[in-house]
């Protein structure tokens, strides 16, 4: 526990130091009307892939595949994302989304042998950003019968060490805290670097559990 506190303090100090030296970012679940987005998220807890299409600027539909490492199960679902509200201000933007999915969960974990259950999940995601700061929060409830039933939430803060122009390589330093009450290690803290240029966004970091995080988002 002492080590965890030390790690958290070090990450916080690092962000504060970077704050005095200081563009924007988000891997949003809804794209522009007619846009496709591929999102691959990889961390110590899960590997996920989400491919979605946005028929309007307010809704996207797509396929979501998840492999959860801890309880060794998969979820395959049709996911719908809704932009509930967007606050477009001169120097900032805020968003509120509802992300929901329905599909199937598969597991061989423990006593399970080719166990299959219907799976449902839903959650809210909110973000706010200007060209220097970023804050987000999201949660999710998952119901997959005997395979899984839980609640997760996570939050992020980010800061841009420099403000780039349109077309530049943009860099963000972020700190993510995940809370999964029912897990053994129920708090995961991940300092990370987010880079994006053009239509490609990459994030990489290392969690307090020693797991590497790597996310890739491509919009086309």
């Amino acid at each position, binding site marked *: 526990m002492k080590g965890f506190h030390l790690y958290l303090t070090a990450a916080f100090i690092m962000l504060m130091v970077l704050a005095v030296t200081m*563009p924007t970012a988000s891997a949003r679940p809804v*794209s*522009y009307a007619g846009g496709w987005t591929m999102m691959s998220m990889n961390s110590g807890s899960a590997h996920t892939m989400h491919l979605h299409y946005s028929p309007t600027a307010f809704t996207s539909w797509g396929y979501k595949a998840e492999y959860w490492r801890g309880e060794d199960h998969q979820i395959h679902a049709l996911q719908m994302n809704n932009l509930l509200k967007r606050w*477009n201000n001169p120097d900032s*933007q805020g968003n509120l989304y509802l992300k929901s999915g329905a599909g199937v969960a598969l597991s061989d974990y423990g006593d399970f042998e080719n166990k299959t259950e219907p799976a449902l999940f839903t959650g809210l995601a909110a973000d706010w*950003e200007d060209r220097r700061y970023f804050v987000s929060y999201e949660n999710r409830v998952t119901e997959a019968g005997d395979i899984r039933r839980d609640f997760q939430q996570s939050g992020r803060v980010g800061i841009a060490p420099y403000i780039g122009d*349109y*077309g530049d390589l*943009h860099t963000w330093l972020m700190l993510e805290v995940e809370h999964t009450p029912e897990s053994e290690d129920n708090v995961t803290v991940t300092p990370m670097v987010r880079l994006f240029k*053009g239509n490609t966004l990459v994030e990489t970091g290392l969690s307090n559990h020693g797991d590497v995080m790597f996310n890739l988002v491509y919009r086309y």
Partner: protein
Amino acid sequence: MKKFILSFAVFLAFMGLPVMNVHADTGAPAAEIITVEANGLICDFCARSLEKVFMKRGDVAAISVDLDSKLITITMKSSGKPSGDQGGSIDDETVTKLITDAGYSVVSITRSAQAGSGDLQVGDGLDRTTNDAGQDHSMDHSDGHSDGHSHEGDHVHEGSHE
């Protein structure tokens, strides 16, 4: 013969002069430039949507985004025809819809025409204001903001993304 050639040359010169003047004054192909001030223009990664949405159209020559001044500059294709024909154009309602589809809110739209070496203002001067969702808009007849904005550092993206 020399007199004939000389007379013919002078005749051609007089005939040609007005034509040349027409081209020098107004005859260069005119390309319309639409400048949009938008709210929510914060994120480079997200603003790529503007390129995608506008460059799908065959009548847009280029689009540039300035995150500092919150301006989107849309250059329409020139018609290549004599003065008076502005080439491709998009009405304000469509511009507002496209920008809303890209996720932003329109604050104002101004228009200018680039013909030859100088800019010629041809806009109606109407500023259009949208709500946060960028859906409803009302018009206010202020002078707009076509002057006074710096476009230094603009990155112009030309060509088709289709």
